[in-house]
């Protein structure tokens, strides 16, 4: 019993939970200020998510890309890198899989995996650019990944316009059916919610994340570089190579996420006026999940539910959907400034110390 209590009073558990609660409270204050009923709003959010099998399926669809981008940010973080670029890697994964999905005519068992792999490699290479710039030229990866996000956005739009445009529309042609990873049978079970094999891939990716980092030698190196690059260098590890590798693997996660959005959900790529936002949400997911694979999955579930359920708040309580961005950003803020959170949960932590 004491061990259970120990888990729940651990800082790595308490801080995110407190941050989530504070975030929801901030949202409630914003709703009160806007003349809405926060309790009714949050209730309709939950109702939206669990209300029908279609909505529940669509929530799963919403969660899936967040797992990928969350893993992307978390993986780089473990090697001491801040990957703001999951957004761009995601977009590059989208466009690569779109290109493969439209251009080739192959049997489904080759075409779909090929399109996913194309997304993975393209996202990985996009991430590796930032990794290489850091390793070879010492450029801060935060700035380069921000810049690469915008380059990715315009590049993808250009490729769609120049090569794959569906006449008269602001989107590409449809990918070939053989490249689709939609899960028809499961989709039917959820009232034709857009479910796809990508969700399974996301969970496998989380397992891969765990095994690679904690069960292999290269994972040990990656983590060592993250904890102390100087000591790792002294121990004979190649810090620069690890930096590039970490950004490649991180980019791969995001790239697969982008590929799955195209191959499993939309089956075409739109010309985007703005960033789709999955990469940025991934930062929130990784932070709240403490950069662990299980944490990322839980974080993705939370933010996926909030994002999808926001439409319910609009319907049930008249609250504009943007409110959920206020909640999510407050959660990120409180996780970042955990000093503020610790101030709120101090009594809990002290009780633990007293109990020992």
């Amino acid at each position, binding site marked *: 019993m004491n061990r259970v209590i120990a888990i729940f009073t651990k800082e790595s558990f308490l801080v995110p939970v407190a941050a989530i609660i504070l975030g929801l409270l901030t949202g409630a204050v914003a709703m009160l200020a806007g003349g809405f009923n926060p309790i009714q709003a949050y209730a309709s959010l939950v109702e939206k998510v669990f209300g029908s099998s279609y909505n529940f399926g669509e929530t799963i669809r919403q969660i899936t890309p967040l797992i990928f981008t969350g893993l992307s940010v978390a993986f780089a973080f473990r090697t001491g890198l801040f990957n703001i670029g999951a957004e761009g890697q995601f977009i590059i994964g989208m466009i690569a899989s779109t290109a493969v999905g439209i251009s080739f005519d192959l049997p489904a068992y080759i075409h779909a995996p090929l399109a996913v792999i194309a997304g993975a490699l393209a996202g990985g290479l996009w991430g590796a650019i930032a990794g290489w710039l850091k390793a070879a030229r010492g450029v801060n990866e935060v700035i380069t990944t921000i810049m690469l996000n*915008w380059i990715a956005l315009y590049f993808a739009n250009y490729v769609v316009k120049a090569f794959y445009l569906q006449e008269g529309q602001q989107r590409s042609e449809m990918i070939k059916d053989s490249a689709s990873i939609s899960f028809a049978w499961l989709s039917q079970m959820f009232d034709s919610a857009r479910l796809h094999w990508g969700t399974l891939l996301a969970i496998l990716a989380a397992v891969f994340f765990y095994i690679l980092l904690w069960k292999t030698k290269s994972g040990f190196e990656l983590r060592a570089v993250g904890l102390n690059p100087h000591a790792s260098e002294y121990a004979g590890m190649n810090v620069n190579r690890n930096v590039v590798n970490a950004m490649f693997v991180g980019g791969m996660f995001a790239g697969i996420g982008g590929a799955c959005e195209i191959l499993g959900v939309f089956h075409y790529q739109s010309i985007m006026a703005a960033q789709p936002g999955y990469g940025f949400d991934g930062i929130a997911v990784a932070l709240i999940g403490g950069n662990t694979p299980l944490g990322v999955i839980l974080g993705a579930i939370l933010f996926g539910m909030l994002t999808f359920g926001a439409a319910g708040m609009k319907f049930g309580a008249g609250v504009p959907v943007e409110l959920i961005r206020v909640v999510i950003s407050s959660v990120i803020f409180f996780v970042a400034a955990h000093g503020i959170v610790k101030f709120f949960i101090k009594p809990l932590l002290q009780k633990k110390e007293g109990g020992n």
Partner: protein
Amino acid sequence: MDWGVIIGNLIHDTIVFSTALIFAALGGMYSERSGVVNIALEGMMVIGAFTGAVFTFFAQDSFGSLAPWIGLVGACIAGALFATPHAVASITFKADQVVSGVALNFLATGLSVYLTKIIFNGAGQTTTLQQVFSKWHIPVLSDIPILGHAIFEGYPTSYIAFALVALSWYLLFKTSFGLRLRAVGEHPRAADTVGINVKRMRYTAVMISGALAAMGGATIALTTTSNFSHNTVSGQGFIALAALIFGKWHPAGAMGAALFFGVAQAIKSLVQIFGLTKYVPTEVIFMLPYILTILVLAGVVGRSSAPAALGKVYDTGSR
């Protein structure tokens, strides 16, 4: 069209597009020179565009043409307030400055559109403003052929931006405040030792940063778009950040970079007029600022190095 007129128009448009970038890049400069990373410029601009538009909207009936000025001042104050959580988190609570910036960017778009919908009965953008800044025709000078239209028929905000560049240069390099600001960003411990209040300097810098970036955002709403919507700013905060780095954290450099990126936007409309989009895709022009910034950072086109203590938390107790 004759080439003189075309170039005149190009310069004119460049200045219009660059103004917001100059404000925001200068804002970023104060924060980063003091050692606090500011990737929240985008969010601060969004808040500025929003408050600028809303203040103007409510002021326009009673104050007429004075309304946009009220909007600009309102944005300035709102920006400073909005920057405060970033300062509190990254200076007092020693939070990761990048994460805190990401959070503010998120918050800005969410909060501003949320409030817009509440104020304007569910509409995603403010109603079109009746009163926005109109262009000044500077007497005599604006009569000069070509150059007159290019430079002396601009929005008042553009002239304010250029004046702020000069002022910032003076402040940064010719006053004790500037010396202290730079000292805090380069070597906070040494600054602390000689009696400079590091935390107070950084708080001031971050709040100035928010005020200026917000003025930049307000400029967009009150000159080019005449309203606020979720895509009023759309990435210009990040271009401003790029301009700051491209301009090597120097006011004149940042202005030069902002003007250069402004040309890119002005050329875009020129390219469309001449039907050159076939040869030069607009996307390539959009990408240009970001690609150039990466090249500069990589040392391909000159070297750009950040203030030494940028992003480092200053802890009075540590050595």
